[in-house]
């Protein structure tokens, strides 16, 4: 443990048994960040195991690896785990660790709130998974559409536990968002003007604003659903307005997509300039694009509902707003390309993952254009085309940025670099495995295979889906192998990796100014900030001083 953790805050030493006092009661944002990230990675593994069972079930037509009810619980658990307990939680963790460091603060603005917010997550996870031991967890998909989730059609405890779990999760998210915003507004180092904030911090501002706004509607939707279930109200029942549930859910659900990807955008905006040895291209437009996405993402939710029978003019509004998101996203893309253009690029592992992210996320963005066009969406909606699309933006997007960030900041968190050979294997297996899994999956949807079916008929239509599905299952195990390599790498490098030093990548931002891992109070003295790349300024000054000294 001693090698894992930064030096312990002294005030805890005398009170309890030390490791318990350190990890259970710490208010240090770095330790809380590590716990968030560990929770996220564990959820990733669990959600991945669910995915593998799903893939085994779908390998051949009319398979019976699991029964339909279990299958429905598995797809719900896969979605819930990956979205709520992995990506969002991991992103919160990495921000928890690095936002205070990047703005030059000693800790988060509300350390005890941070502690509470983190510990609500394991509570939320335990509440959700306890459904598996009390007669079946949620079985209506991660979206939990009413009226399938009303008491009439779903009398079990699983839906209640899921709703309670996500209400706890949403409150925790609101706490974390408040904390991030306050930290960034109030605790910046001298000279760290808003126009000098690292883009990762800007991304965290926009993410926090989104979660603050849409977290409460999620809780509201679930509380109303519980009213229907427990107190016989009729908000979403067959006597009520089932589609109202979808509106409330997706008013949260679509911005959630951006809550999961905006921090990733921020990470990429940090990584490319460092390894291309160029400043970010168009800092101002990058920030503007973030807020363009924040604004638009709250006006597109009904594009998940183009088949529920809305007025076509309402559909047109949501279609146009959805298409407009391509504009700020395109700006970010072209600015990243311009940042790397004619750079002196060191293709280290973080940079490889950043480029892997751009190459794959682009495909998810383009299929998103097809899906945004309402007429085309009525063909593709609820089919495997959508499953492929969402994995391209969530796995090819968010998860690739998580890997990029992990390889980038692992040396700062642990003081050691991740093993390069294993990392190369990880990169190529995940890139090939991911694309093999999900690229052909588009064709299943185009051939008419709906999502969320527990099995599919063989030879019912003129062409079967069996061969494509078998191929996808094989490819999905390549992705599983890549994750295994990643975890082996993390575990072995954490103890025995190459010692990194304080600033292994010649970074631009303040987290590289302190030691690796940073001391409890982060900085002995905060460096002066005179641009959005304070560490580069410092390094250039030192180099010119050394040059002068050697010249004279």
């Amino acid at each position, binding site marked *: 443990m001693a090698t894992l953790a930064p030096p312990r805050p002294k005030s805890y030493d005398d009170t309890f048994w030390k490791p318990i006092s350190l990890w259970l009661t710490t208010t240090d944002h770095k330790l809380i960040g590590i716990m968030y990230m560990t929770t996220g990675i564990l959820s990733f593994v669990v959600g991945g195991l669910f995915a593998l069972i799903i893939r085994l079930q779908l390998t051949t037509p009319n398979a019976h690896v699991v029964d339909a009810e279990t299958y429905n619980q598995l797809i719900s658990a896969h979605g819930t785990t990956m979205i709520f307990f992995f990506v969002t939680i991991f992103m919160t963790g990495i921000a928890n660790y690095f936002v205070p460091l990047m703005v030059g603060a000693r800790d988060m603005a509300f350390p005890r709130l941070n502690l509470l917010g983190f510990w609500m997550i394991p509570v939320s996870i335990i509440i959700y998974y306890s459904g598996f031991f009390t007669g079946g967890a949620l079985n209506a998909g991660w979206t939990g559409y009413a009226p399938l989730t009303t008491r009439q059609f779903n009398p079990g405890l699983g839906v209640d536990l899921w709703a309670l779990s996500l209400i706890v999760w949403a409150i925790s998210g609101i706490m974390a968002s408040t904390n991030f915003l306050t930290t960034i507004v109030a605790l910046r180092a001298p000279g760290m003007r808003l126009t000098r904030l690292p883009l990762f911090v800007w991304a965290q501002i926009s993410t926090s604003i989104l979660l603050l706004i849409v977290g409460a509607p999620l809780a509201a939707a679930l509380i109303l659903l519980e009213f229907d279930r427990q107190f016989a109200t009729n908000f979403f029942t067959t006597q009520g307005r089932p589609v109202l549930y979808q509106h409330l859910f997706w008013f949260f659900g679509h911005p959630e997509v951006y809550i999961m990807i905006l921090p990733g955008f921020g990470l990429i905006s940090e990584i490319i300039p460092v390894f291309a040895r160029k400043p970010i291209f168009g800092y101002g437009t990058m920030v503007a694009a973030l807020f363009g996405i924040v604004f638009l993402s709250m006006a597109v939710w009904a594009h998940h509902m183009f088949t529920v029978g809305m007025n076509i003019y309402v559909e047109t509004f949501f279609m146009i707003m959805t298409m407009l998101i391509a504009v700020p996203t395109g700006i970010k893309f072209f600015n990243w390309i311009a940042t790397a253009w004619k750079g*002196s690029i060191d293709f280290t592992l973080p940079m490889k993952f950043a480029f892997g992210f751009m190459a794959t996320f682009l495909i998810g963005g383009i299929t998103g254009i097809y899906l945004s066009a309402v007429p085309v969406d009525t063909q593709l909606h609820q089919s495997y085309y959508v499953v492929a699309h969402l994995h391209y933006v969530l796995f090819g997007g968010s998860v690739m940025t998580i890997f990029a960030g992990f390889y980038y900041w692992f040396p700062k968190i642990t003081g050691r670099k991740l093993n390069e050979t294993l990392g190369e294997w990880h990169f190529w297996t995940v890139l090939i495995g991911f694309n093999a899994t999900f690229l*052909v999956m588009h064709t299943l949807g185009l051939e008419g295979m709906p999502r969320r079916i527990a099995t599919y008929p063989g030879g019912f239509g003129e062409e079967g889906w069996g061969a494509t599905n078998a191929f996808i299952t094989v490819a999905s195990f390549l992705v599983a192998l890549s994750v295994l390599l990643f975890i082996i790498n993390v575990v072995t490098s954490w103890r025995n990796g190459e010692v990194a030093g304080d600033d292994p990548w010649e970074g631009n931002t303040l987290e590289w100014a302190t030691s690796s891992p940073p001391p409890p109070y982060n900085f002995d003295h905060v460096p002066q900030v005179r641009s959005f790349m304070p560490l580069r300024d410092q390094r250039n000054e030192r180099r010119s001083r050394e040059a002068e000294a050697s010249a004279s």
Partner: protein
Amino acid sequence: MPRSADFYTERVSYRSSPVLRRLLLAAPLVMIALLPGTALAASGLNPLPPAGVSPNGRNIYNLYLGISIPALIVFALVEGLLLTIVIRDRRRRLGPDYKPPQWHGNGRLEIIWTVVPLLLMVAIGTVSFFELQRDFQRPADAATDMQVDVSGHQFGWTFAYPQGFAITSDGLNANPLVVPTGKLVRLKLNSEDVIHGFWVPDISGKTDLVPGYDNYTWFKIDQPGEWRGECTELCGSGHSTMQLLVKAVSPSDFNTWAAQQQAAQAPSPSPPAGSPGPSPRASASPSPSPSASVRPSPSPSS
């Protein structure tokens, strides 16, 4: 574009590098890029949605093709730029002394890649809007040749015909929704319990069946045939068994069939006894023959 003083000299330096070497470097990357495409073609996988046997389905197909043109151009452009960077701008190739130009931005370029995507999106949105107006409104009564009331339930369908009979289809062995060719058939969609989805990919797009209100969709099938589909909204443990068949026959065959159904439903107000299947409803016979089971129409059509 603002350029550093050494920009031009740097540019010469990589221009002078051997072209052949660059091509050799690029070869494996190009192969990786082409691999999925060749794999697709070899396996006969279709990168396009069904062409549609109904005009609205065909229009969706055409719109998909239309969007593909800018989509493929953007894909090729961006992946090409990324590939260029990967091949050309490696530090290992350029050497440690290469000083990259320190651009902080370029207003004109950034305006270009804001405005061009914006115009592209507005164009796609406009074309899609016209398609919405044309095919996605409830067809007028005058234009409708026949309306079938489709009702979804866990886990099957009821098709109530204007002639006063209804076909019920439950589970895997679907009883087809029989319709005449060349006629505009309007479907009124509703659900008895949870939300279901009506989708026959070869005919047209999907529409949800939502309890509490009626949705409408339509098709006008131009050829006799039989097409499959299934429920597209997760509706419970039997969701994947909720199969759907649509069968188009010539108008005269349809009239004969409809008369048979009418005659069969008239004497018995309840489903025929001894019909196979575990469901209490009139359930499907193993073979998808249209005369297998009928039950009285629950509602006259509007």
